[in-house]
């Protein structure tokens, strides 16, 4: 015998099987004591679960106020309906029929309104996002440009300083060279004088 799986049994217990499946399972239960016992045990358990009732504490005033508001609305609407019925004379349409006819139309209109509002909200959100992204890009570009200018200025300054230093170095080198030339000439002249003096002394002896 093919037994149904427990998932089907619990679905059967809660009336969630499709009619054909429910029928098949019911027929199986009449012929299978084991499955029938399982279902009976579960039914007994579910009955026991019903004995645990839980109170709900809610502010009595808000519930009363809500019900009074609804009662007042109901009275006004019923009164208006009666008056409208008397004024519009015989042949007034059945309220239930009108409601049944109007309800799909109202739902359709509400759905369209909701879709339009959603689309509008989404478009506005997208536009705002685009604007914010643009601002971020602009700010970032401006920051980068500023950094570039600062770096360029620093570089130019360093370049000028280098040139200044080079000019001083060149001047110093030229000064050293001139001083060295002058000293060499002086030394040559002194050496020449010394040589002629030595020769003169040697001749007079």
């Amino acid at each position, binding site marked *: 015998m093919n037994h149904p799986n427990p998932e089907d049994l619990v679905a059967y217990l809660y009336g969630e099987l499709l009619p054909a499946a429910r029928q098949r399972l019911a027929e199986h239960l009449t012929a299978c004591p084991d499955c029938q016992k399982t279902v009976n045990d579960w039914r007994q*358990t579910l009955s026991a679960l019903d004995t645990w009732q*839980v109170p709900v504490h809610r502010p009595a005033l808000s519930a009363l106020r*809500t019900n009074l508001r*609804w009662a007042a609305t109901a009275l006004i609407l019923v009164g208006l309906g009666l008056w409208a019925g008397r004024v519009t004379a015989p042949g007034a349409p059945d309220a239930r029929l009108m409601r049944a006819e109007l309800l799909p139309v109202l739902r359709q209109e509400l759905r369209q309104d909701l879709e339009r509002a959603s689309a509008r909200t989404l478009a506005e959100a997208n536009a705002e996002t685009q604007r914010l992204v643009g601002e971020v890009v602009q700010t970032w570009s401006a920051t980068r440009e500023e950094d570039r200018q600062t770096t360029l200025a620093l570089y130019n300054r360093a370049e000028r300083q280098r040139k200044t230093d080079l000019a001083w170095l060149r001047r110093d080198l030229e000064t050293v060279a001139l001083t060295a030339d002058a000293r060499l000439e002086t030394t040559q002249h002194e050496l020449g004088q010394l040589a002629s003096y030595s020769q003169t002394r040697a001749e007079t002896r």
Partner: protein
Amino acid sequence: MSASVLESFKALFAPADEQLMWRVQTADDAEAFAELVNRWEGPIQRLCTRVIGDAHRSQDLTQEAFARLYARRKGYRQGSKLSTYLWRIALNLCYDDLRRPYHRRETALTNDTNEACSPWEDMPGDSPTPAEHAAAEETGEAVRRALLSLPEHQRTIVILRHYENLKFREIADVLDLPEGTVKTRMTEALNQLATLLRRTLELKVAPSPNRRRRPTELSVL
């Protein structure tokens, strides 16, 4: 006007939960939010009480659930069921609460059990004997303890299916599980509960044929 007729009339003109939530999302409509609270306060509080086993704490969690619903109103996606969103908020709060160390679960419904409805209260005519009333309370208390002994994921499914009457497919949406998994866990829970409650159910006092009747008139001899 009786409560049921008033409720039917209200249902005739009442906007759907999703329409009310639309108003809350787009216009911060306090009236619409109050209506949602009015509709869902009871079911959410019952869910919290049964999941955590503490009626007093469940009132706090219920308020927190609606505060969170309002705070996250922009996060609700139109097109999905509001009830699914709200059940999830409440369950997440319950699970967080269960992980807190201060839990008062064992002191939970001791007082509230006495206020709970007896299945015989509304029956016309005969009133239960004290023994029957005590038996009902004892069964209710045994059920409470048995449910609280189940793992959270099984307990939640039993509560949503049996007490809040959600279909298995709806429970699967709330818990973000496959429907087959939901049913499997339900069967496991029912088997466990049947075992835990077997002794209690066998000892349950059956209605006695000699139960006391309320006197309707005095017989004059």
